[in-house]
């Protein structure tokens, strides 16, 4: 189709602040332009997409390659091999795919409640009838496709094609569509795997080094613990801690001297401390490797091999110990050819770390340090799940092949493809279910996580974006420790310091900063080869004894936490390594840092590290030159070009520690290594909306981060095409007067959520106390804060297994005299039983008229036939305020059932009690709506939309709001956009702004002369006024207003129901009851707790104290002593429940007014 250039494409391009090509460029002012260039290739939502792409394109192939062959236990001639796997483009599951002209679009999936998924295809080679058969493109279930990933239809789509597909070009993507709902896999934060963490328990004087080993086969945790000076190794598979010397002896039969050198080197302090551990081995009579293995083997937990089926050959203790050490303890260090030395080095290193920490308590690790954390993204979680499902799948296929081959006389030769297709669906279904429910269960790893996925919040554009950058922490939600919640200094620039929820999850749920990138896995092999070729002084660690390793000035090079090589020139090595990385010879995401405390060089290539780009500075000169920016400007260079040319580079949190980073160009010295690209990128996308956040008290910014997500505005360009369960839109959204670069970068100015209100700060009427706002009625009439509320009502015509189905029915008619008319309930229905589009619908009216068969279970065979009646199951409108039918959609789901979606629309103007907020955490409700005549006005006729009480300022200290007002005013007066920037950490041009206001005849401080609208007299003070961006929040009185006199009661207790949705009563709770008791208002109490609640007349037998019935006691078989009394039904229920539990309850009555004797 011809490409229409509507000029929109240009809007989505990175902005360069309206600079012409010929304008002068200064690196100081314009280096921020790297940021939009960065966001074009990485950042924000891109990490989700990168991670998914990595999984779908590489990881999935790796997994299949690792489990590619299936052999039969029955017939040794048979084999099957998966040679390749790939994920295709998204497809419909419908059979009539061929006839449709368009490929499936995400929007179709949303509307039809389908899953946006693509078939997984495998190539198989196997033996049939002694012949090798190659089958290509065998389907293996369906893989949900992440929107905007490489497999998605939207990847590489331009604005025009996006529009054709009814998609919003500003939609970030990065989520899945499962059964019509948008699901996000949140970023999970975890402690890093395969790294040693040393911790000290001061109270019990225990120091332990622990490592979580994670390989494709298993996950386990190993500890090396020092307790009362004795060091031992503990692991789940071992019954008790094994003295460390025994472990080291078992690992390759090291002599005592070798062990001592490996652990302590030649340092006398450590040697003394470690010496005692040799006694432990002597005490246990362990001197040789054989004895050590015997000792360990005897302590390996029985039943740990349960997983392997079939009769297991009994092994002796030595074999048992050998197996445990080789495969279970510190499993991520591979044992090649029974060479235990690398593992011995690893254990010794852990031991040494413990000794070092015992010596200097400062040298323990910090769990909360961001460098010790890894972020798990969608791709990694999916690959865990897929690996598990694929392994299970191969086992199932193997079992059914075995079953088939066991039959002696087979009619047809075995065709393994049938077996594959029989089990193929399990994979897709498993992934589907996991994303749908959010329960991530991987048996091998004992992983059992709930709440991994969430429904993408589409309340506003910001809430959707905020959800994509959210990080949820795996551990400890209830514990009252402050450590994990506190702001860590290493979070600087990586995680947003402002954006975290208040209350329970405070500090545990975090958000990414603007420039953060999360690494994907980089292959270790090539990096290892580089290590040796880079510097001649580097030699493999295998060649050295402990004495040489720990010699003064020797540095051990660790690759992903495992000791790998030894060098005496760490600085030179690291510099060369970095140079190679800057030249693009290896992945930019490989990090290197030197740790002088432990004489170690750490190289990391693993996935999930948090990193961020910086401008490189060398010899006091930054590498970024004006010509580079010019190239960027002209579109001749991208961010990745700068990366390969060594102008910018990524540093992860650990490497940051080796760098000296300066924020401003003029602060560069000779020792500076890096320059920050832009200071405001330490904030995230949501906090970036705040103008002048650096002038606000910090919690105010946090409040705004929570509120920005509740603001009503435009959610996407396709907002009226998608049918959301609940959609709020603002009728006249406005771009904020004062914006920031972040706003432009995330396109908030294109999908805004708020309006620029003219605010005067003064007291008015007394209806403005406690943050209440005074609203101008005329402003509301003109459309200020007017919003629309759309609701979805769905009906799916269910099919039942017995062939019966739900069906649409006709609206009912009744005779009113001679005229035939619809029954009131069906008034708005059309002949097809669906509401008419455009009609007004009131509470109680039906929108979808359908009926359900009463008989849903019978088979219909022979006499087994149920009733053929139907029950009315119409969908009716239940909200007290009427709405208009906006849209009625009919479609079919993937299961070929009809689905009907009705969308209703309400237009709401602001009313008393609706919530508004500025962008500075200053929320308030509408306290009074005032006629414009009564509002104060300035001498030029200016009349405010909002009057705000000045008491909101002193304690909140939101100076940013004042500056926003001032800046906005100047920007409006001069008509210049560039005044209207409220970027964080930039100086504010107050003087310039004041001058502009003066030039236009306003007071320089933003305060003007106002006249009272009520008295017509001048106000006694000059009033601060100007435009401030106000957001309308989703909390509206109409959705909360509730009252009840009489109404429904709960069946069980006969007390009034609870909650507005059930027309519930208002509870007189314990504390209110206590007040009434204390006051002695007995009649009021009686009325509230009995008469207006669940009082019932009860027959009680005075003789036995049990309940009677209709004046007769069934226990005593008499009517004699039975009397009536009133008591709460709940109390009667309690008595009966206690009786049912075999707790006898007798009621003893006495006269309220005893008869005088």
């Amino acid at each position: 189709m011809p490409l229409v250039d509507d000029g929109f494409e240009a809007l989505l391009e990175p902005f360069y602040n309206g600079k012409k090509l010929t304008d002068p460029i200064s690196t100081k002012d314009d280096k921020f332009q790297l940021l939009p260039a960065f966001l074009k290739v990485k950042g924000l939502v891109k990490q989700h997409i990168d991670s998914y792409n990595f999984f779908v394109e590489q990881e999935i192939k790796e997994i299949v390659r690792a489990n590619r062959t299936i052999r039969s236990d029955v017939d040794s001639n048979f084999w099957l091999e998966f040679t390749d796997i790939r994920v295709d483009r998204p497809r419909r599951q419908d059979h009539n795919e061929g006839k449709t002209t368009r490929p499936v679009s995400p929007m179709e999936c949303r509307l039809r409640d389908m899953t946006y998924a693509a078939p997984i295809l495998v190539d198989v080679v196997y033996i049939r009838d002694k012949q090798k058969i190659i089958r290509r493109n065998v389907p293996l279930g369906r893989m949900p496709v992440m929107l905007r990933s490489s497999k998605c239809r939207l990847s590489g789509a331009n604005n025009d094609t996006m529009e054709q597909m009814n998609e919003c070009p500003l939609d970030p993507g990065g989520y899945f569509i499962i059964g019509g709902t948008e699901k996000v896999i949140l970023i999970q934060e975890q402690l890093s795997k395969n790294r040693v963490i040393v911790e000290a328990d001061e109270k019990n004087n225990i120091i332990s080094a622990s490592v979580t080993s994670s390989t494709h086969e298993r996950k386990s945790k190993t500890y090396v613990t020092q307790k009362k000076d004795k060091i031992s190794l503990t692991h789940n598979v071992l019954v008790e801690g094994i003295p460390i010397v025994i472990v080291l002896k078992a690992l390759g039969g090291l002599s005592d001297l070798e062990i001592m050198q490996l652990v302590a080197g030649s340092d006398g302090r450590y040697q003394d401390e470690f010496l005692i551990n040799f006694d432990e081995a002597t005490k246990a009579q362990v001197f040789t490797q054989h004895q050590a293995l015997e000792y360990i083997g005897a302590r390996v937990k029985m039943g740990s091999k349960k997983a392997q089926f079939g009769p297991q050959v009994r092994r002796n203790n030595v074999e048992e110990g050998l197996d445990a050490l080789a495969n279970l303890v510190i499993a991520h260090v591979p044992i090649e050819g029974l060479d235990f030395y690398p593992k011995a080095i690893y254990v010794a290193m852990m031991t040494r770390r413990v000794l070092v920490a015992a010596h200097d308590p400062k040298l323990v690790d910090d769990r909360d340090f961001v460098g010790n954390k890894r972020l798990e993204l969608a791709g990694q979680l999916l690959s865990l799940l897929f690996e598990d499902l694929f392994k299970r799948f191969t086992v199932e296929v193997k079992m059914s092949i075995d079953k088939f081959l066991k039959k002696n006389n087979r009619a047809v030769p075995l065709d393994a493809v049938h077996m594959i297709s029989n089990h193929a669906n399990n994979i897709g279904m498993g992934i589907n279910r996991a994303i749908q429910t959010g329960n991530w269960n991987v048996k091998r790893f004992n992983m059992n996580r709930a709440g991994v996925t969430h429904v993408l919040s589409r309340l506003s554009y910001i809430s959707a974006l905020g959800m994509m950058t959210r990080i949820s922490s795996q551990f400890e939600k209830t514990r009252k420790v402050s450590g994990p919640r506190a702001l860590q200094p290493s979070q600087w620039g990586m995680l947003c310091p402002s954006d975290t929820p208040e209350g329970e999850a405070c500090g545990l749920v975090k958000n990414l900063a603007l420039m953060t990138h999360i690494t994907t896995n980089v292959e270790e092999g090539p990096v290892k080869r580089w290590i040796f070729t880079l510097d001649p002084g580097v030699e493999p660690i295998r060649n050295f004894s402990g004495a040489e390793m720990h010699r003064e000035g020797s540095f051990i090079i660790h690759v992903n936490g495992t000791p790998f090589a030894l060098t005496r020139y760490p600085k030179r090595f690291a510099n060369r390594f970095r140079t190679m990385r800057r030249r693009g010879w290896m992945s930019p995401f490989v990090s290197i840092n030197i740790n002088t405390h432990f004489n170690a060089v750490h190289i990391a290539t693993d996935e999930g590290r948090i990193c961020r780009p910086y401008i490189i500075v060398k010899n006091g000169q930054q590498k970024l030159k004006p010509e580079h920016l010019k190239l960027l400007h002209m579109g001749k260079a991208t961010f990745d070009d700068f990366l390969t040319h060594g102008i910018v580079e990524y540093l992860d949190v650990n490497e940051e520690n080796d760098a000296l980073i300066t924020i401003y160009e003029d602060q560069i010295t000779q020792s500076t290594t890096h320059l920050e690209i832009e200071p405001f990128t330490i904030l995230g996308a949501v906090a970036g909306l705040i103008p002048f956040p650096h002038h606000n008290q910090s919690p105010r910014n946090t409040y705004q981060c929570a509120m920005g997500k509740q603001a009503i505005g435009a959610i996407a360009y396709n907002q009226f095409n998608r049918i959301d369960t609940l959609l709020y839109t603002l009728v006249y959204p406005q771009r904020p007067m004062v914006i920031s670069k972040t706003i432009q970068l995330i396109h908030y100015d294109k999908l805004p959520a708020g309006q620029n209100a003219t605010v005067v700060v003064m007291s008015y009427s007394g209806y403005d106390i406690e943050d209440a706002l005074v609203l101008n009625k005329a402003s509301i009439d003109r459309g200020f804060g007017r919003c629309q509320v759309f609701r979805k009502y769905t009906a799916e015509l269910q099919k039942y297994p017995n062939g019966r189905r739900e069906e649409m029915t006709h609206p009912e008619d009744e005779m009113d005299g001679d005229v035939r008319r619809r029954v009131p309930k069906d008034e708005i229905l059309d002949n097809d039983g669906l509401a008419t589009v455009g009609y007004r619908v009131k509470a109680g009216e039906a929108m979808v008229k359908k009926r359900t068969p009463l008989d849903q279970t019978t088979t219909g065979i022979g006499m087994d036939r149920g009733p053929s009646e139907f029950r009315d199951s119409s969908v009716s409108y239940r909200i007290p305020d009427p709405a208009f039918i906006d849209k009625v959609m009919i479609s079919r789901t993937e299961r070929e059932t009809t689905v009907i979606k009705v969308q209703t629309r309400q237009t709401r103007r602001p009313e008393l009690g609706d919530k508004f907020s500025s962008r500075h955490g200053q929320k308030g409700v509408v306290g009074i709506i005032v006629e414009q005549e009564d509002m104060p006005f300035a001498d030029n006729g200016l009349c405010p939309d909002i009057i705000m009480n000045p008491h909101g300022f002193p304690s909140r200290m939101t100076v940013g709001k004042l500056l926003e007002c001032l800046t906005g005013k100047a920007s409006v007066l001069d008509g210049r956009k560039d005044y209207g920037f409220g970027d964080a950490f930039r100086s504010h041009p107050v003087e310039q702004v004041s001058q502009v206001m003066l030039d236009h005849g306003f007071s320089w401080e933003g305060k003007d002369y106002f006249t009272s609208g009520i008295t017509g007299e001048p106000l006694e003070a000059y009033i601060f006024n100007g435009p401030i961006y106000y957001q309308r929040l989703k909390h509206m009185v109409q959705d909360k207003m509730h009252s009840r006199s009489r109404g429904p009661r709960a069946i069980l207790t006969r007390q009034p129901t609870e909650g507005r949705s059930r027309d519930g009563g208002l509870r007189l709770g314990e504390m209110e009851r206590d007040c009434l008791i204390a006051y002695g208002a007995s009649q009021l109490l009686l009325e509230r707790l009995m008469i207006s609640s669940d009082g019932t007349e009860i027959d009680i037998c005075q003789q036995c104290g049990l309940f009677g019935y209709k004046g007769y006691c069934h226990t005593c078989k008499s009517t004699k002593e039975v009397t009536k009394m009133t008591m709460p039904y709940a109390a009667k229920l309690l008595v009966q429940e206690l009786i049912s539990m075999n707790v006898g309850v007798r009621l003893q009555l006495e006269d309220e007014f005893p008869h005088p004797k």
Partner: protein
Amino acid sequence: MVREGYQPPTAGAGPRGSTHTGHEVRTQMTYICGDCGSRVSLAKDAAVACNQCMGRVLYKERTKRMVQFEAR
């Protein structure tokens, strides 16, 4: 929606003419295809699909009758 201020007395039962005179014949309803925009008439129990483009998302047409809104 309507809560505060002056409410003009509405004549009759509101915007929609609520009487239906004569028997309705079970007519075929027409819908609009979400993909190609063509009009699709569907009989009861017919497959929900546009006969032009096989698009399976259909929308109901807006009523031709006048709808009165309160301009507030």
